[in-house]
């Protein structure tokens, strides 16, 4: 049986339907985002783990040295499940006239490798050494299918190979060349798997050992032991599964989802709780006489407390339960979309009851906490006083602004009324301001990501990298061969370049990176010091990306060993740290490098710059047609690839803007409704004395906008720091996410909030038009 109090609760909720709906919707959004992002995170984590297990994704990859000796040594080590050796080499490919620097990885013919097993998507696995398997990103881009042919450069000659199959690999779910080149364009990078004997012939033998061991508590210790053993066999470097470029990119991405699963729902639940608090407080205030009657007639204070907690519980449950269900269902769709988009070989979608229960619990706890304070006030009402209808009213006083700025006291009376209205209910004003702050945080965190990524791309590809393309030579080239490239119509400059895999070592750290040997007075690369100044490439020492400072524990002037596989180790010093958004590279001037090694270095590639307005595609064709050119990398293509990724960001920010606007609407609308409800008597009086409704609407609008305006600067500051914290957690040696928010973003965010504030007043202003003057002016308590 429905008790009278429950009936009263239901009718009160219906009577204030719009306000409680706003709370419910905000709660729904918060819980939905939580359940969707958290379950997506767990599903993806499980999918990655399952992929790693099913395809025996190497826990450790060892490069260089006696990898076969190492493999033989650790093959039977306790905890090691499988170990294999293979060859891996970056060589030019020519696919239908497009020359690129791809990667060839050796695999056994006939039977799959036991570590880093491939998933055959089309065709068959490698049955002869004359055929190759093409990694799916490359196959998709060039539309390669089994039976298609293209050419690979085997050190001295081009050889035509036939595609046996298209495969996916746990190592290239995200097609990264290495940690320094995490984002690649398919025109610049692709992977093939060829017969180990063929690749070994190019690479000069096996150069990698890949070790797989089942996950367990001993993993870290085992990894450390294996790395020690590898060093004993002369390994130049090694990386774990976590450090592997593709996996690191996916893990970074997952971490973003995990953060989203906490940060965004927190904002929404806080906003919903505050909207509920404002609404329930007002309800308790106006229902004091009713509460007095309830208590006077024998209802216990506990019953009253529970009754008013119900005003939080009901919208909380109404928002949280469907929110959790929708969120869990949405997570399935997001996981499917994500794994399809990234072509994750194994997709695991599971139902996690704990997420459902947790999401509902979060929503209910937030709404009950919001209702607790007003419910306690209700339960402590003094019946005799409440039934007299004497609601304590706040004494009038001049606003803080008038006290701080005395000339404001000479403002027209309506403006003074507006100013004082702002401070009339300080708690509500503060909550409305917090609503504005939370909304701006949501908007700026999302928008800040776009601005930052755009800014970083511009910095990397426009301000720092001055070359338009990198041309890779078929054989080491002389300086005159490099400068001959300028003869190609449209090329205005060409500089020799040598990029070598290198390991930087200091007594406290080791870091595997790419060592770029550039012309002493290079015009193809600009160097931004960490203090923001542009500097030239130092004559002495090695210049490092700023993340190397902490990774290696070094400062400018400190000694550092540079290990280059095949060339040996040289000792030099840290010349400078540079602030570059992508990767943590090492740069050294050509003359200094030659001094260090003691001989003239050839150029394996050339950095070229185009004339303005040149046809880039035609120039690429002209350059790659030259016999000495084996591969080509278009610097702007990468920029274009990243621009394409931005579409996803725009969609994400669009959704967040809608959510932020909804949240701001819910809070401002509720605060506005309560504000007007408290003013009905004044509004009716003003109407009775001849003030027209438009003027009253303007005054109330001004007052509410003023509250929003007070919240905006705080929101912009809080949003900035929230965005900084959110992005800062993504910064690593892979990317330096230093927050950049464009000035226009602050302006548009402000405009968005003001528009929402204006729109959210509309229902309240309509209520003013419906006010019954005779009824209100006669009431004792307004």
């Amino acid at each position, binding site marked *: 049986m429905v008790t009278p109090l429950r009936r009263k609760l239901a009718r009160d909720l219906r009577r204030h339907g719009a306000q409680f709906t706003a709370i419910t919707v905000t709660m729904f959004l918060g819980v939905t985002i939580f359940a969707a992002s958290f379950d997506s995170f767990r599903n993806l984590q499980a999918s990655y783990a399952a992929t790693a297990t099913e395809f025996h994704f190497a826990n450790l990859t060892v490069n260089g040295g006696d990898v076969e000796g190492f493999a033989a040594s650790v093959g039977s080590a306790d905890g090691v499940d499988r170990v294999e050796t293979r060859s891996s080499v970056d060589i030019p490919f020519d696919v239908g006239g497009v020359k690129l620097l791809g990667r060839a990885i050796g695999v056994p013919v006939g039977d799959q490798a036991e570590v880093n097993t491939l998933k055959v998507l089309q065709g068959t696995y490698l049955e002869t050494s004359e055929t190759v398997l093409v990694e799916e990103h490359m196959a998709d881009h060039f539309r390669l299918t089994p039976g298609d042919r293209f050419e690979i450069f085997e050190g001295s000659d081009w050889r035509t190979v036939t595609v046996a199959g298209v495969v996916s690999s746990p190592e290239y779910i995200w097609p990264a060349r290495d940690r320094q080149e995490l984002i690649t364009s398919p025109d610049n990078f692709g992977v093939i798997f060829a017969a180990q004997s063929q690749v070994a012939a190019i690479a000069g033998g096996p150069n990698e050992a890949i070790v797989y061991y089942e996950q367990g508590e001993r993993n870290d210790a085992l990894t450390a032991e294996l790395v020690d053993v590898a060093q004993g066999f002369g390994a130049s470097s090694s990386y774990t599964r976590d450090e592997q470029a593709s996996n690191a990119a996916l893990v970074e991405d997952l971490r973003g989802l995990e953060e989203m699963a906490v940060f965004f729902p927190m904002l929404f639940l806080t906003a919903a709780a505050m909207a509920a608090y404002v609404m329930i407080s007002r309800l308790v205030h106006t229902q004091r006489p009713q509460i007095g009657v309830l208590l006077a007639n024998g209802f216990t204070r506990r019953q009253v407390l529970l009754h008013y907690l119900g005003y939080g519980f009901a919208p909380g449950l109404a928002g949280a339960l469907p929110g959790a269900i929708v969120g869990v269902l949405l997570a399935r769709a997001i996981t499917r979309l994500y794994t399809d988009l990234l072509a994750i070989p194994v997709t695991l979608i599971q139902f996690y009851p704990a997420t459902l229960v947790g999401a509902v619990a979060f929503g209910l706890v937030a709404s009950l906490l919001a209702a607790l304070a007003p419910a306690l006030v209700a339960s402590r009402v003094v019946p005799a006083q409440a039934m007299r209808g004497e609601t304590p009213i706040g004494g009038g006083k001049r606003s803080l602004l008038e006290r701080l700025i005395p000339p404001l006291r000479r403002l027209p009376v309506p403006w003074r009324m507006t100013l004082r209205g702002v401070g009339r209910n300080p708690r509500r004003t503060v909550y409305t301001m917090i609503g504005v702050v939370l909304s701006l945080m949501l908007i700026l965190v999302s928008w800040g990501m776009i601005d930052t990524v755009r800014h970083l791309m511009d910095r990397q590809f426009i301000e720092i990298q001055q070359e338009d393309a990198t041309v890779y030579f078929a054989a080491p080239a002389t300086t005159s061969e490099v400068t001959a490239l300028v003869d190609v119509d449209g090329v205005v400059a060409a500089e020799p370049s040598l990029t070598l895999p290198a390991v930087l070592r200091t007594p406290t750290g080791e870091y595997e990176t790419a060592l770029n040997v550039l012309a002493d007075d290079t015009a193809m690369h600009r160097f931004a010091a960490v203090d923001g100044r542009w500097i030239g490439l130092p004559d002495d020492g090695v210049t490092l990306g700023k993340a190397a400072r902490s990774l290696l524990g070094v400062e400018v002037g400190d000694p550092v060993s540079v290990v280059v596989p095949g060339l040996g180790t040289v000792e030099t010093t840290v010349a400078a740290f540079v602030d570059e958004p992508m990767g943590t590279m090492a740069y050294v001037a050509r003359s200094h490098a030659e001094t260090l090694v003691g001989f003239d270095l050839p150029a394996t590639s050339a950095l070229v710059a185009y004339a303005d307005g040149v046809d880039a595609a035609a120039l690429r064709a002209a350059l790659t047609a030259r016999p000495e050119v084996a591969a080509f990398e278009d610097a702007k293509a990468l920029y274009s690839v990243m621009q394409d990724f931005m579409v996803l960001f725009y969609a994400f920010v669009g959704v967040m803007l809608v959510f932020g606007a909804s949240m701001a609407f819910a809070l401002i609308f509720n605060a506005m409704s309560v504000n007007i409800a408290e003013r009905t008597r004044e509004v009716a009086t003003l*109407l009775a004395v001849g003030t027209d409704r438009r003027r009253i609407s303007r005054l109330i609008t001004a007052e509410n906008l003023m509250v929003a305006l007070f919240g905006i600067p705080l929101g912009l500051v809080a949003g900035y720091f929230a965005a900084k914290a959110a992005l800062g957690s993504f910064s690593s040696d892979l990317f330096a996410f230093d927050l950049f928010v464009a000035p226009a973003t602050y302006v548009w965010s402000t405009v968005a909030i003001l528009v929402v504030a204006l729109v959210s007043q509309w229902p309240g202003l309509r209520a003013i038009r419906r006010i019954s003057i005779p009824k209100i002016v006669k009431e004792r308590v307004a």
Partner: protein
Amino acid sequence: MTIKMAEVWKTFGEGHTAVHALRDVDLAGPQGDFTVILGPSGSGKTTLLNLVGAIDDVSRGRIEVNGVDLAAMDADAKTAFRRESVGFVFQFFNLIPTLTALENVELVAGLTMDNGSDRAAAVLEDVGLADRMHHFPAQLSGGEQQRVAIARALVKRPPVLLCDEPTGELDFETGRMILSLLRRVAAEHRQTVLLVTHNAAIGDMADRVLRLRSGEIVDDFRIDDPVSAEALTW
């Protein structure tokens, strides 16, 4: 300003639930009359006042103010009418709590005149609040708040003053003082006053008394020699 009501009906609700607050009321009065409308609760006193003040609409009949039918006015015209022609004094004062006494009066003065501030101060002095005009309502007694409300009604010099139970919330002495003030200022400015009360004793100070019962005028008489407010007792 002349007020004329002819066959006025005011009905709330419809069908079985319809309540006739006023039934076939006729009323006409010369300018400057101090009219007291008496009657028990629910007799239709306030409804009559609201109709004259154009804050409510008749269901049937006609109310003319200076020959203009209020029913024919749109919302803006009614607002203008209230702004220009009517001053309200309410039982519960209805002051804006965030404005001082002076600012409450200035707010209304500003609707109709340029020198509203000076005029507001002068009216507050006139009602005896020269030293309290910078206080907020919460800092004023009930009588002082009602004097502010009267000043607010008077400041725009309306030809008609509508007072709904102006002493209902006040003690005896304060109530008499407020009535005296109303009588004096209305006489000074030749304002027509309609004062609603359930207190029959107040009728003794009126030029004219109307008695309402169940929405009908049951008594309507003039008093040639009204007593002063100070002489009233109840």
